[in-house]
């Protein structure tokens, strides 16, 4: 066997040598009689990107929203930096699949929205928003409205808004699924840069196998009925080797194939 990903098929614990920024412990979530999540536990190492990958209906977005504090688990608990989650908090920021921008507000006000909700004074929040607008490559569009931007640019606004509040944990719910393929590739490259430069913990929900393997330090494969973490994969050889080479690594291709093999039976 030439593959070298670390695999843990039993109840996942934090990989040795990593400190957890976020821990989900025995999370169950029921909607009436429907069991969305059952007794799910997962550790998210600090400063790394963890993907939640699985077929639709496996509860990956539900888990993300529970971590965000937007949904309450039926049982179990989430801890962020040792603090139990009871609702949304300043230690986490959310990037939405459909961008969730205020259509009546400019890019500047959208990016500053999180700071506005935290009561930061207008001049300071605008200065900080401008900084992050530049960082995501939207300089010059501060006074544009969302409907004047392309899908990719809108998600950059959503990303800048999440970065501007300087939360330690970034929760991303299929953030690139609504943008076109080329923009998406650029986003994935930028995301790798971001993980490297910002000392933040990223939790990234996706349904794209290639995307998960490309961007992740750790991939949690979730399977449905009942929802559970079936395995955790930590790609090792192609991390930090440059964004251009990842897709040519044999390990990258092997992991993609392996994940597909385990998921294909769940695809209708």
């Amino acid at each position, binding site marked *: 066997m030439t593959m070298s990903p670390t695999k843990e098929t039993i109840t996942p614990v934090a990989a040795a040598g990593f400190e957890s920024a976020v821990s989900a412990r025995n999370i169950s979530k029921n909607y009436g009689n429907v069991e969305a999540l059952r007794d799910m536990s997962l550790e998210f190492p600090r400063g790394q990107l963890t993907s939640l990958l699985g077929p639709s209906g496996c509860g990956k977005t539900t888990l993300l929203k529970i971590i965000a*504090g*937007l949904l309450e688990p039926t049982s179990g608990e989430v801890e962020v930096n040792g603090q139990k989650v009871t609702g949304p908090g300043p230690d986490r920021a959310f990037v939405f*699949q459909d961008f*969730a921008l205020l*259509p009546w507000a400019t890019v500047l006000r959208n990016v500053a929205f999180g700071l506005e*909700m*935290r009561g930061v004074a207008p001049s300071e929040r605008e200065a900080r928003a401008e900084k992050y607008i530049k960082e995501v490559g939207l300089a010059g569009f501060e006074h544009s409205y969302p409907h004047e931007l392309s899908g990719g640019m809108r998600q950059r606004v959503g990303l800048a808004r999440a970065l501007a509040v300087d939360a330690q944990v970034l929760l991303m719910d299929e953030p690139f699924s609504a943008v076109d393929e080329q923009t998406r590739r650029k986003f994935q490259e930028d995301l790798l840069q971001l993980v490297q430069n910002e000392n933040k913990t990223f939790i990234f929900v996706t349904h794209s196998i290639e995307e998960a393997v490309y961007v992740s330090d750790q991939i949690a494969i979730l399977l449905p009925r009942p929802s559970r973490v079936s395995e955790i994969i930590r790609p090792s050889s192609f991390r930090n080797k440059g964004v251009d080479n990842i897709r040519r690594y044999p390990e990258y291709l092997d992991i993609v194939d392996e994940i597909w093999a385990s998921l294909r039976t769940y695809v209708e």
Partner: protein
Amino acid sequence: MTMFGYRLPGMSSLLLWGLLWEIVGQGGLTFFVPPLSEVLGTLFEILGTTAFQKALFETAYAFLAGVFFAIAIGIPTGILMGKSRLLDELLLPWVNVFLSAPLTALVPVLMVLFGFGMKSIIITTTLFAIWIIILNSRAGVRQINKSLVEMAHSFGASPTDAFFKIYFWAALPEILGGVRIGIIRAVKGVIIGQLLISIVGFGALFELYSANFLMGHFWAVLIVLFALAFSISEFLAYLERRVSYYAAKR
């Protein structure tokens, strides 16, 4: 619209109808329709009279007060109904009943309850306008993109923040549409109130002129009323266009 290569200004059709009115009037077909020129002459004549100005003031006062209450109560009620299932279940049947009820028939009840004065007229005006404002605000809130609400929640928005910074703005296109229709209904409400409750304002003028067969005066006041209602409604339509850039993309 363009005709023979010329772009016609807005409402050019009014000229045509005005011309028709003039012809019918000059033909002397019926005393009920005096020529438009005569009506306009009368209009400028009565504009300066104290009777007219008093009527205008009384009508405007009742109208503005009635619309104010309809908006100030209607918009928050509608937004809260859109947000809260419980409130919606409680109030929606009543809103629907009153929206389609013949409110004119309720006016005598209002007179018993609130007397024969300005108060009853204002309440009548409010009752004519408020229901559609409530329904539209509610509809505006109900179509709100759920992830906007989640977004505000996730960034720690307080309920007040969410109300003023998310719900109100997200529902604004529908709210303005509701206010525009509400105001048109309020014009009806204020005149019906003035005719039925106490003979004051424009209602009194209509009563006076039609009872004395002063059709020129009658039409003149009607034109003034129409012009006022039309201007307000056009102003609101303008506001609606100002927010239409995001109405389709929420």
